[in-house]
C-alpha cells in the first residue's frame, strides 16, 4: 500500500497541478482553471514543433542504433581474434554520462576549431555548420545519440545471439542456405522478441532526451532542435509556470503511451507468429 502510494502520489499531485494556474513568479495563489493549460498547449505551434523534432530524433536514432547494434553484435558473436577486447571497448560510450558525451561532442563539432572540422577542411570542405544549421544540428544530435546508445543494443543483442542453438545453423548449412539467408530465416526471427523489447526501451528512453540537446544546441538554432523535455524545462524552470509544465508533462506521458501502444500493436502479429 505504502509503495503504491509512493508511486502514485507524485503523479496525482502533478495531475492536480496541471489543472491549476500555478506560477511561482510572480508568486500568485494557485487557482483552478480546468483544462485551460491543456487547451493552451495543444493550440500552440511550438508544442507541435517540439513533438515533431523529438519524434524525428527518436525514429532515426533508434532505427540506426538497432541496425548498427545488431550488425556489430553479429560480428562480435563470430569467433574473431580479440573479440573480447572489442566487446569492452564498444561498450565504453554507454558508460559515460550523457552530459559529458554532449560536451565532448560539442567540442569535436566546433565549427572552427573542432577536430572534425579541421579534419574535413583538410580535404577542402568549408567550415560546416554542425550545430548552427537546422538540418546539420538534427543530424549531429542523432549521430551523438547513436554513438552513445548503440552499445546498449550491442550488449543485449549479443546476449540474445549467444542463446541461439548452434545445431540449427548446421542444419541450415546442410540445406545450402547462405549466411545471408540464415540471418533472415533464423537469426532475425528468433531474435524478434528481444529486438522488440530493446527497441521499445530505446524509444521510451529516447523521447526523454534532454541533456544532450541542452548542452549541444540548447534547442537551437531558434527552437529547431528543441525536444519535449527541454521545452518542459524551459517552461518550468525558466518561466516557473508550474501548472502549464505539469499539463505539458501529462501530454508528454500520454504521447509516449500512445506511441508505445502503436509500436506494440504493429509488431504484435509478428512476434505472436513465432511463439
Amino acid at each position, binding site marked *: 500500500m505504502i509503495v503504491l502510494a509512493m508511486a502514485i502520489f507524485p503523479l496525482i499531485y502533478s495531475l492536480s497541478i496541471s489543472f491549476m494556474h500555478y506560477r511561482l513568479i510572480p508568486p500568485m495563489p494557485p487557482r483552478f482553471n480546468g483544462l485551460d493549460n491543456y487547451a493552451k498547449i495543444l493550440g500552440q505551434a511550438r508544442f507541435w514543433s517540439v513533438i515533431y523534432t523529438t519524434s524525428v530524433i527518436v525514429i532515426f536514432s533508434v532505427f540506426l542504433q538497432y541496425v548498427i547494434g545488431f550488425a556489430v553484435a553479429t560480428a562480435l558473436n563470430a569467433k574473431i581474434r580479440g573479440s573480447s577486447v572489442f566487446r569492452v571497448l564498444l561498450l565504453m560510450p554507454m558508460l559515460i554520462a550523457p552530459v559529458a558525451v554532449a560536451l565532448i561532442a560539442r567540442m569535436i563539432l566546433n565549427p572552427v576549431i573542432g577536430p572534425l572540422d579541421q579534419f574535413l577542411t583538410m580535404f577542402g570542405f568549408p567550415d560546416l555548420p554542425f550545430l548552427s544549421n537546422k538540418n546539420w544540428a538534427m543530424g549531429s544530435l542523432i549521430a551523438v545519440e547513436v554513438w552513445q546508445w548503440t552499445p546498449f543494443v550491442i550488449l543485449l543483442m549479443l546476449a540474445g545471439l549467444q542463446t541461439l*542453438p548452434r*545445431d*540449427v545453423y*548446421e*542444419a*541450415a*548449412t*546442410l*540445406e*545450402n*542456405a547462405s549466411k545471408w*539467408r540464415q540471418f533472415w*530465416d*533464423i537469426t532475425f*526471427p*528468433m531474435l*524478434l522478441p528481444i529486438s522488440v523489447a530493446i527497441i521499445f526501451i530505446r524509444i521510451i528512453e529516447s523521447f526523454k532526451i534532454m541533456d544532450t540537446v541542452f548542452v549541444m544546441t540548447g534547442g537551437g538554432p531558434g527552437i529547431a532542435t528543441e525536444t519535449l523535455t527541454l521545452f518542459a524545462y524551459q517552461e518550468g524552470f525558466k518561466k516557473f509556470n508550474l501548472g502549464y509544465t505539469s499539463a505539458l508533462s501529462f501530454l508528454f506521458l500520454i504521447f509516449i503511451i500512445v506511441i508505445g501502444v502503436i509500436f506494440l500493436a504493429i509488431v504484435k502479429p509478428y512476434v505472436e*507468429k*513465432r*511463439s
Partner: protein
Amino acid sequence: MTNISIRNLSKSYGDVVVIPGINLEIRDKEFVVLVGPSGCGKTTTLRMIAGLEEVSGGEIWFGERDVTNLRAGLRNTSMVFQNYALYPHMTVAQNIGYGMKVRKVPKPEIDKAVRKAAQILDLEAYLERRPKNLSGGQRQRVAIGRAIVRDPDIFLFDEPLSNLDAKLRIEMRSEIKALHRRLQTTIVYVTHDQVEAMTMADRVVVMRDGNIEQSDDPITLYEKPANIFVASFIGAPSMNFLEGTITSGEGGAQFQTTDGVTIALPANKWADAAGRPVVLGIRPEHATESSPTKTVVTMLVKSVEPLGPHTLINGTVAGAKFTAQMPAGTSFEPGESAEIHINLDKAHLFDGASELAIR
C-alpha cells in the same frame, strides 16, 4: 549410386589428434553404424562426412565425386541431429519444407513433398504446430521428415535416439530401419548404444580412440570379435575374461588361470597358443547350468539379478569378475559357490599382449 569412400581421413584440433587416420568403404544403400564409447571419434567422422567439420588430412569421396573440400551445402547429404535442430519459429510444415524453399522449389511442389513426408512419418495432424508443442518422438520424426524430403544421396544420423525414453527408442529403431528399406539410401548412423548398432545396421563399425577396431556385420561382430575391446563392447551383459596361459599336458591342452584354476580344453583347440599369456573370453549366455563341452568352473556368487526370461548371477571365477546367465528360477544366495558350465565351443581366446583374437 552413392558409395562413400573414406581414405586415410584424419582430424586434429591443434596438437590434439582425434582421428589419426581411418579408411572405410561404405557401399551404396548400405546402413552403416559407427559405434564406440564417448570420445572415440565417431561423431567427428560423421561431421566430416557432412562437411560440418574440416578435414585435417585424407580424402572423402561420394561415388566418383571428391567432396573432401566441398561446401557442406553442396554435398547433398541430410542429417538428423541429436537435439533435432528444428527451427523453433517455424511450423512443422515450414521446418520440413525449408530446404526446398531455400532451393527455390515452387510452392505447390513443396506442399506436395511435405504432405508426402508427413504421411510417411504419421505427422499429418501436426503440420501447423510448432516444435515446442510436440513430444520428443514427434520432434524426431519432424527432423527425419526434413531429411527425407530433400531426397539426399546420403542420410547421416547423429545419435538421434539418445534423447528419447527407452520404449520410444525401440519404436523409432524399427521405424528408421523400415525407412531405410523404403528409401534405399546410404545411411551412416552414429550411436554409443551397441544394441542400437546391432539391431539396425547392415554393418557395424566399432571405433576406439579414433581408430576402427572392427567393421563387420552384427553377427560376425558378435561371434568373431577381432580383439578384446570389440568382444567386451558388443553384447550385454559384457563378455567375461579370464587371464592365464595354455599348457599342453597329458590328454590335451589346458587353460590355467593366473590363480591356478585349470580348465581342460577340447582336443586340438588352441594348442598352438601354448606358452604365452592369453585371455579366455566367455559370454554370459555361454556360462550356464549345462554345456555340451561339460566344462565346469566354480563361481563365488556376489549378486543375483532375476530378469524374467533368465537370471543373471554376478560374482568371481578364479578372482576375475564373472557373469553367468542361468535359467529363470535359479536362486543362489550371495556368498555361496555355484557350479557353472562353460560352453568352450563358443568361447574366445585372445593374445594377452596384443589383445587380438586367436582363432
